[in-house]
């Protein structure tokens, strides 16, 4: 299937959770993610049964999801992914909560929230630049 070439460049304004720039392919889900128990910390894949992204890898991608969930140990889960070189390059949330926010800060993963994530599709090339998100 051919991807549409007509999609215009788009700029979305959100809020900075952790500063920095990151540009990569987007992996988008409408499901929340738990970084303790819901992911493989070595491979950087979603392991939660029945999750929209079950089996998919977010390593090196811009991971786009509504918000985090689950145990607060999830903050260390993100840190573990980063140490293993399996973390997403950047993260975008609709509404960030404490577990993922703290995880992004301690792992130094550029992150923005308050973004309408329905405008981003899996496979889009997305750039996070502080609180601004650019799609092409």
């Amino acid at each position, binding site marked *: 299937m051919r991807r549409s070439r007509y999609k215009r460049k788009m700029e979305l304004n959100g809020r900075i959770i952790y500063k920095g720039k990151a540009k990569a392919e987007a992996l988008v889900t409408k499901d929340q993610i738990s970084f303790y128990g819901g992911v493989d910390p070595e491979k950087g894949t979603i392991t939660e049964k029945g999750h929209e992204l079950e089996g998919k890898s977010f390593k090196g991608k811009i991971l786009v999801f509504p918000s985090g969930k689950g145990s607060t140990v999830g903050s*260390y889960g993100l840190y573990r992914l980063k140490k293993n070189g399996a973390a997403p390059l950047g993260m975008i949330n609709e509404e960030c909560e404490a577990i993922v926010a703290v995880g992004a800060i301690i792992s130094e993963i550029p992150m923005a929230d308050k973004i309408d994530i329905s405008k981003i599709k899996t496979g889009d090339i997305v750039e996070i630049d502080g609180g601004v998100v650019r799609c092409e």
Partner: protein
Amino acid sequence: MHLTKEEERILEGGQGYASMKSMQILTALGDIFGADKLIPVKSVQVSGVSYHNLGDAGLDYLANLAKDGSVKTPTFLNPAGMDLKDWKELGISEDFAEKQKKVIGAFSKMGINTTCTCTPYLIGIKPGLGEHVAWAESSAVTYCNSVIGARTNREGGPSALASGLIGKTPNYGLHLDEERKPDLFVSVDSKLKTLSDWGALGYAIGKRGKNKIALIEGVSKPPEDYLKTFSASIVTYGSKPIYHIAGVTPEAGRFEKPSERITIGEAELKEAYEAMNDKDDTIDFVSLGCPHASLEEIKRVSELLKGRSVKTELWVACARPVKEKAEQLGYNDIIREAGGKVAADTCMVVAPVKGRFKSVATTSAKGCYYSQGHNNMKTHIGPIDKCVEAAINGKWS
């Protein structure tokens, strides 16, 4: 969120890496949750202490902060993955013990009191009514807000540590009057007798109340140990780390009765017991002290075990100062002679017990939740005497 000049300087790295990282965490949380400012905290309890949950990555994070971080307010720890002294008798491996000691070493380097407990209020860390603290373990947070009437959000490991290293927390959530208001009225229509009855009540309210704050009526004032287990249960099965009990907890009288109402009676408690009691009656692990046992509870276990011997593994988990007191009073010797273990610094939830046991008996509804989910065990819940009998017989009766 408004920052003072001093706080801004810390955020820019003026006081080193650990303070900068901590300030980043606190300001991000403050912004997310709409806090107006940072407020000082009287004490901090850090979770994420067991190497079982931290792994090498967590250890690495702590070691990094310990390079130049030191706490600015009294800070202590949640249970670790083992008894820091008598870990061998709990069947902990050398490898695990070495890593766990490194974790504790990093905390200690930051000036943290390495007493590991979920019941700080049993060892003299008891804030005053209305005081602000930043605690992390869910039952301690719930007891603190509800029974003591001090104020804390349910912190995560890194955010609590950040509060310790800065001495402050963002002013939002349960630090504010209006956020402590109940929105579910619970009428209890049953005579609660035992410790595990209170665990079952927490299950029944938590499951139904979910994200609501309960104002409970219809129970008479129970012993403190019962409120300790109730605090653990209601937050494990619900999610709000605060409740009010009319005539019992200090803030209950401040509020009007919420319009949404539920009743918990015999049927609801029976359902809770059934969910936590497996049909298979074989027991190979008995775990008491979740939350950590009081001296009274250890005394009771020793009385029940006097002159008898256990068939199963038996742990009575508690804080180290409580274990030392029990040692002096001779309770631990009686428990040891019966074949049981008094385990300080750790507990059934955070120790690496997965795969070692098939079926646990406990007084704790919270213990049942983590045993079933996280550790893949069958569970039985009941009062202390019934659990001790199960340890002696290897069977639930």
